[in-house]
């Protein structure tokens, strides 16, 4: 297939932002320099019309990341081939730099729960998930990234620490990892575990993207809302993460109560500053 767009890759030294309908006009007018734009793949599954036309327009200027929330990689249901076909069609049309999905399940018995639900981390589930990741990569003809999710509950049947589980999926299937630092932080607080131990379990060469997001403090623990500024502790964990992983294309997610574009750009600029100082420290260290 001939390419329709110039190849563009995210700049690991700079953050991207989520592309949201409310910002189409402002973004098209101001054309800020951004490492990449990320969209929820499903929001562009239309057969035609304005959503795709806008995305193609932005794709001409930016690297695009397709971030799926619905493939239900860990479900016991068969993979929804129609959903996967739509994703493949979108990827063919947009030529994204990155394609990602979540290490979770969201449908069972044909009913879709429209939420990223946690998996038990066992050898059996690991094998199941790896088969599915491999089959998705084969259908799409490319590598995908898989993202660690927020798990408000943990299962009695889990036998593998989450970091080792994620790392093993990447090792066995050749997929990459989308490290969600906010999810790692929330899980560590809610379950009294060590977020850095989770990050340390990952092979740095497999981490292809980082997500940051804001959440909410509730009586039952932290909740990942994607509707608030990033927690200070998450910025601190992000710094530690990139000190270990090196600079990685980073995205600040904001999906509900979406603020003005300027607020998103300011959060992205904060991530840029941390990425820049990390790169500087690394180069000083290399020179010394």
């Amino acid at each position, binding site marked *: 297939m001939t390419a329709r767009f110039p190849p563009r890759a995210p700049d690991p030294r700079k953050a991207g932002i989520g592309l949201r309908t409310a910002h189409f006009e402002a973004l098209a007018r101001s054309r800020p320099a951004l490492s990449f734009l990320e969209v929820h793949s499903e929001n562009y*599954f239309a*057969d035609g019309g304005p959503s795709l036309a806008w995305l193609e327009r932005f794709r001409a200027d930016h690297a695009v990341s397709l971030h799926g929330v*619905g493939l239900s990689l860990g479900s016991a249901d068969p993979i929804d081939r129609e959903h996967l076909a739509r994703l493949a069609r979108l990827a063919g049309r947009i030529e994204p730099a990155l394609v990602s999905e979540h290490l979770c399940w969201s449908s069972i018995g044909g009913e879709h729960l429209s939420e990223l639900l946690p998996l038990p981390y066992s050898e059996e589930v690991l094998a199941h998930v790896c088969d599915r990741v491999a089959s998705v990569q084969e259908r799409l003809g490319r590598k995908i990234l898989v993202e660690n999710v927020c798990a408000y*509950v943990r299962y009695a049947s889990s036998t593998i620490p989450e970091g080792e589980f994620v790392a093993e999926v990447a090792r066995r299937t050749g997929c990459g990892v989308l490290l969600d630092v906010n999810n790692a932080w929330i899980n560590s607080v809610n379950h009294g575990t060590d977020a850095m131990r989770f990050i340390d379990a990952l092979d740095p060469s497999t981490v292809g993207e980082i997500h940051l997001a804001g959440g909410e403090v509730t009586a*039952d623990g932290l909740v990942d809302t994607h509707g608030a500024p990033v927690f200070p502790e998450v910025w601190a964990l992000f710094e530690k993460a990139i000190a270990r992983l090196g600079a990685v294309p980073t995205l600040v997610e904001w999906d509900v109560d979406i603020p003005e574009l300027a607020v998103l750009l300011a959060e992205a600029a904060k991530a840029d500053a941390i990425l820049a100082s990390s790169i500087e420290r690394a180069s000083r260290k290399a020179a010394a």
Partner: protein
Amino acid sequence: MTVTEGLARLQAQFAAAVLGEDGAGFARHLAGDAGAGLRRLAIYRNAILANRRRALRAAFPVVARLVGDGFFDEAALRYGEACPPGGADLNRYGATFAAFLAAYPHAAAMPWLADVARLEWAWHESLAAADAPGMDFAALSRVPEGEQPGLRLLLHPSVRLVRSAWPVLSIWEANQPDRDGTPDREDGADDVLVWREAQRVLLARLAPPEAAFVDAVARGLALEEAAGITDAWDFTPMLQRLALHGMLCGFSTGDRVPA
């Protein structure tokens, strides 16, 4: 038991615990403090229901405004129980919401509500319908006169016709953000043509023969047959209107279905 059988059972029990009335039975599957775990299952319940609600509100803003938040959220909840999403793309969720409202006892006093929902779903589908190249009018003009009665026209994928015994277009227009909700007509039927032009969805009220003609074209009838349905009425202006607004995208002659 295979891995997927075990996993399927766990996931089905999780779904029942989160969406059903009583989650306590799921406690034995959870690690750590069972009380905290069960309370956190409610986070999932709230998120799942909020996502469904948000999807329906986005597709049916006029229905939501007509019935108010409390009514809409309850209807969304009951609809989700009766017809949960069958796919992950929530932009496609709600295709049967109008039918649900038609049978919803609490909406019985608003007999027009289901038709307003049908119109909103037509709008929603039109926005996301496939793009299509415009009609090749040069080729159309070369069709010999003798074959013209047998012409079958292909409507653009974004075209929908919503026919209602209620003034649904007046209700729809009155409940756009810049209006106060008072319709300019309170009775009478509305036949509404829905289409996408320059990336916007447009709506127009059709006269009864116009609607009958568009309906006949949409069903793939030849012009001659379509004209027969509308009796002695001259369909030429309607045909020109469809052409002018990009609602025609192909034709065939003879018995072939247009492509």
